[in-house]
C-alpha cells in the first residue's frame, strides 16, 4: 500500500491532523469522538492489526488527558500513533476492546494509574496496585513525595565515621534528610505550593470519596 492510499484512508476522518515523523511512524491527532472510527478504518482497510500499547499523558495545565493508541501493521511495517484528548474532570472514554483484544490490559492499567474509566471494557478492576485505595498515582496532582512523607518513617543513620569525614570537610554534600525534609532539590516555590496544597486536603487520601 502506498503512502498516498494510506493518507487517503486517514483523510476520510474530517478533523484529522497527520504528521509524518518518519516513513514508518505516523502521528495522527483526532478528536475523541472519531478515534474508534479511525482505528476501525486502519484495522479494516490498512492492515493495522496489532495494538502495541495505549498510553496516557496527564496535561494538568490544559485540564486534559491525552490517550495515545499505538497501532502497528506487519505488512506496512509502520506504526500509527493516534493521539486524542479527553476532559480531565470527566475522565471517561470508550473501550476499543471489541476491536483489539489486548486493549483489555492497557485500559485496566490506565484506569488504575490515571483513573480514566473505559466504558465497556470487560475488567475495570484492580490490576497491579491491589492494595491501593488512594488517588491514581500517575496523575500529576498526586504528590508521591508528600505521600511517602506521610506514610513511611525513615531510618536515622548517622555513624561516627561519616561525622568524622564531614568534620574533615568531606562526606556527603547534601544529606538525605535535607532532601527529604526541605526539598532542596526542588525550587522553593514548588515546595511552598505543595505545603499549601497539603493544608487544603490530605494528599493521596479521600480521592473520589
Amino acid at each position: 500500500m502506498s503512502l498516498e492510499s494510506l493518507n487517503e484512508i486517514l483523510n476520510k476522518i474530517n478533523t484529522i491532523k497527520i504528521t509524518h515523523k518518519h516513513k514508518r511512524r505516523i502521528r495522527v491527532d483526532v478528536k475523541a469522538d472519531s478515534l474508534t472510527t479511525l482505528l476501525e478504518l486502519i484495522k479494516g482497510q490498512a492492515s493495522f492489526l496489532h495494538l502495541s500499547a495505549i498510553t496516557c499523558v496527564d496535561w494538568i495545565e490544559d485540564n486534559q488527558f491525552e490517550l495515545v493508541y499505538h497501532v502497528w501493521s506487519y505488512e506496512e511495517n509502520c506504526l500509527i500513533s493516534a493521539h486524542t484528548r479527553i476532559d480531565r474532570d470527566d475522565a471517561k472514554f470508550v473501550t476499543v476492546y471489541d476491536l483489539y483484544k489486548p486493549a483489555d490490559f492497557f485500559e485496566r492499567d490506565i484506569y488504575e494509574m490515571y483513573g480514566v474509566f473505559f466504558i465497556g471494557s470487560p475488567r475495570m478492576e484492580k490490576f497491579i496496585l491491589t492494595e491501593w485505595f488512594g488517588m491514581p498515582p500517575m496523575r500529576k496532582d498526586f504528590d508521591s513525595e508528600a505521600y511517602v512523607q506521610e506514610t513511611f518513617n525513615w531510618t536515622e543513620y548517622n555513624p561516627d565515621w561519616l561525622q568524622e569525614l564531614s568534620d574533615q570537610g568531606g562526606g556527603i554534600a547534601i544529606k538525605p534528610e535535607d532532601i527529604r525534609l526541605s526539598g532542596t532539590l526542588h525550587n522553593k516555590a514548588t515546595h511552598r505550593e505543595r505545603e499549601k496544597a497539603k493544608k487544603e486536603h490530605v494528599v493521596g487520601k479521600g480521592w473520589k470519596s
Partner: protein
Amino acid sequence: MMKKELKIKSNKTNQQKQKRTNPLANVFDDFIDFCQSKSLFMLHYCTGCGAIELPPAMTSRFDMERLGIQPMVTPRQADILLVTGYVSVKTLKRVILTYEQMQAPKYVIGICSCTVNGGMYWQSYATAKKLNEYMPVDVYIAGCMPRPEAVLEGLNRLKNNIKNDRKEQKGSAWKDYYKNYDYYLGNQQNLFGKEWQTPVDVIAEAKLYGLEGEGTYGENTKKLKMVQHPLLPQEMKL
C-alpha cells in the same frame, strides 16, 4: 499535616533468657547455639539487584560454605531470610508471609540501601522504606550494591550475634516478632489495610512455644481478631 504516630516499641531488654541452674543444661544450650551459628541455611528473597552479589559470595571466589552457610529453597528449611533489594508494598506481603513461614530461630538480613531507607526509591509511593518496621531485622548491609566482602562481613556479624544469643542482651532479634507482635502487626495493617492477615497464626505459635511478651497483644491484634478467618489444623477424627 500530622505524621501518623506509630507506637513506640516496648522495651526490648527483657528478652534475656533465664539461665538454667543445671550447668550441664547450660553447656547443652551453648552447644546448640554454637551449632546454630555454624550452620545457617539461607533463603534469598531476591527482590532487587542485590541478588546478583550472592552468587559470587557462594561460589569459588568467596565460598560461603566454608562458613557453614548454604542456600536453601523454601522458608521451612531456611534460617536466614535475605531480602536483597527494594521491597514494594505488594512484595512486602509475600516477604512477611515467607518470614512467618520460617521456623525459629530465624534471622533477617536486609541487603542494599533499599531495605534501609528505600534507597533510590525513596520517593516512590509503592516501595516500603524501613524493613524493620514490619519484621525484626538482625543485620542491615548497606550499599548499592554491597560487595560480596560486605555480605560475608554481615553474615559473620550475624554468626557472632547467634553465638552470643544467650550470653548477651544484644542477640538475634527473632523473638521480638513474637513478643512485640502488636507493633509489627500495626505497621503491616497501616500499609495493607484492616483486612490484612496471613495463613500463619503467629499468636497461637507464640502461645504454644511460650514466646508471648507484653507486646504480643494489643489494639492491633484485637483488630486482627475481628477480621481473621482462623485456620485450625485438621484433626484426625474417628
